[in-house]
């Protein structure tokens, strides 16, 4: 028989430590929906998503019951819409409306892929799509958007960086009456992964199969609890404990993913073994760092602790799954993590420290509220800095900033649900306007020449 201690451990993880499957995301290729007529193209998109994803939510719920493990989100990612917009022409917002409608009908809570990949330059459809993002995110509820503006191989497209500063600001302005939620659904990437199941940055890359199931696991609470049981051991042992815990969490993701793939008759893609926090108490990545011995997240030692955590999660997870992908590491969103929110409030966590942390975590500056009067150039400057970290270190970095229109440092935004809440953080007011106005391209670094 299975050891009763193991059984109780699993149940404690789920009941008390918020262990869950964060998302089952179905990636659907829309390349075969491209049409020179916009209306026909939208209809094909609607039909294909409806056909592929009709059983996604039901299957997710059945698996949830069978294994007794909560699956929080069922989502869809699609081919970057700029590719379809390039073929059809016309106003890309029509695609956003279609995606929103069909995602509500199949019952998922987010659909990602209102995206453009412009790291080396703009092709047909890219510019029109980027300009339409504020309108698309304002009109829709569930559509998420992302733009890849740089890669290690291609360098950074600074014209796109300049545009994105304005787009983020407009997203917030258009949804100012709804806590500026538009900007929370938009991510700017460097080195975007093509198989990421997590929103808002999920899209189905052009190199992916026609339809695929990707799974994102969670479990900061489980890792924190495991570390808490060993308060005085040296850090190498802490790393070992995290590795073992990450292994267990990821095995569960692998099980759920392969079961979902079998039931839906869709190939299994990857497990994204990320530690994804939620604002719920006991589900915080910041609290893991504090459990390791920091007084408050953001203080000296934070980057080192995060580097240890991020690496140990990968080492544990990678053996547990047949295919690991996506972002895989520790997320450090501010508004979605109770410990980060507290740290930002008490002043131990600054934007600059977060930037340093992004060099060793899995993604980037995530869900950070900035003053409403921050200029588009400053936002572009922050994007450029973050993209440079990603480009040089061969890793994914991302920026999801929410300009809190009409608010200033210390005031709060509250999105509700998984997106959370948090204080507006201070941003340097020294202007990068001249640098950003130059536009052009930052060439790829030497480390891109690996051939």
């Amino acid at each position, binding site marked *: 028989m299975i050891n009763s201690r*193991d059984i109780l451990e699993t*149940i404690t993880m789920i009941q008390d430590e918020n262990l869950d499957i964060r998302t089952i995301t179905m990636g659907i290729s829309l390349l075969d929906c491209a049409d020179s007529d916009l209306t026909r193209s939208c209809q094909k998109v609607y039909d294909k998503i409806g056909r592929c994803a009709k059983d996604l939510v039901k299957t997710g719920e059945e698996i949830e019951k069978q*294994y007794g493990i909560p699956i929080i989100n069922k989502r869809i990612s699609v081919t970057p819409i700029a590719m379809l917009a390039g073929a059809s022409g016309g106003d890309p917002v029509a695609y956003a409306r279609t995606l929103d409608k069909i995602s509500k009908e199949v019952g998922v809570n987010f659909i990602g892929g209102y995206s453009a990949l412009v790291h080396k330059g703009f092709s047909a459809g890219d510019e029109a799509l980027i300009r339409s993002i504020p309108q698309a995110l304002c009109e829709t509820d569930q559509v998420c958007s992302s733009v890849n503006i740089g890669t290690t191989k291609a360098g950074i497209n600074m014209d796109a960086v300049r545009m994105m500063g304005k787009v983020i600001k407009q997203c917030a302005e258009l949804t100012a009456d709804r806590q500026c939620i538009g900007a929370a659904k938009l991510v700017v990437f460097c080195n975007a992964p093509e198989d990421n199941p997590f929103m808002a940055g999920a899209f189905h890359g052009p190199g992916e199969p026609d339809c695929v199931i990707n799974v994102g696991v969670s479990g900061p609470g489980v890792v924190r609890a495991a570390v808490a049981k060993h308060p005085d051991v040296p850090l190498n042992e802490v790393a070992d404990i995290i590795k073992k815990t990450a292994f267990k969490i990821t095995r569960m993701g692998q099980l759920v993913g392969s079961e979902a793939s079998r039931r839906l008759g869709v190939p299994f893609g990857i497990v994204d073994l990320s530690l994804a926090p939620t604002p719920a108490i006991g589900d915080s990545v910041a609290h893991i760092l504090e459990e390791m011995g920091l007084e408050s997240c953001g203080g000296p030692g934070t980057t080192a602790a995060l580097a240890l955590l991020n690496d140990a999660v990968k080492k544990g997870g990678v053996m547990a799954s047949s295919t690991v992908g996506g972002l895989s590491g520790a997320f450090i969103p501010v508004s979605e993590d109770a410990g980060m929110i507290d740290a930002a409030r008490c002043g131990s966590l600054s934007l600059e420290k977060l930037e340093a942390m992004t060099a060793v975590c899995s993604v980037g500056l995530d869900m950070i509220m900035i003053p409403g009067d921050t200029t588009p150039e400053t936002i572009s400057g922050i994007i450029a800095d973050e993209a440079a970290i990603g480009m040089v270190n061969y890793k994914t970095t991302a920026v999801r900033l929410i300009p809190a229109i009409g608010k200033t440092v210390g005031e709060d935004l509250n999105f509700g649900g998984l997106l959370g809440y948090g204080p507006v953080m201070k941003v340097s007011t020294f202007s990068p306007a001249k640098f950003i106005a130059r536009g052009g391209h930052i060439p790829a670094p030497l480390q891109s020449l690996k051939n």
Partner: protein
Amino acid sequence: MKAVVTVIGKDMVGILAKVADQCSKTNVNIIEVTQSVLQDLFAMIMLVDISGMNCPFTQLADQMAYIGKEMGLQIHVMHEDIFNSMHRI
């Protein structure tokens, strides 16, 4: 195919009987039971064979959860695969 039924909560008369009754109604065979009572806390782990089950798994899970709710206990039914995959390489 096997599943694990766990019951945790305040000890009272008839817990095992109710759970076993439900198993019999749904043609679920009980293979092994371990239970302990620590002070007032009742904890039972039951391994059951669900190959001959006459209802969908979700229905069994729902009914057990309902019994749990009625008696003020937490009853979970989970497929054994989750424990095997988590704790065995």
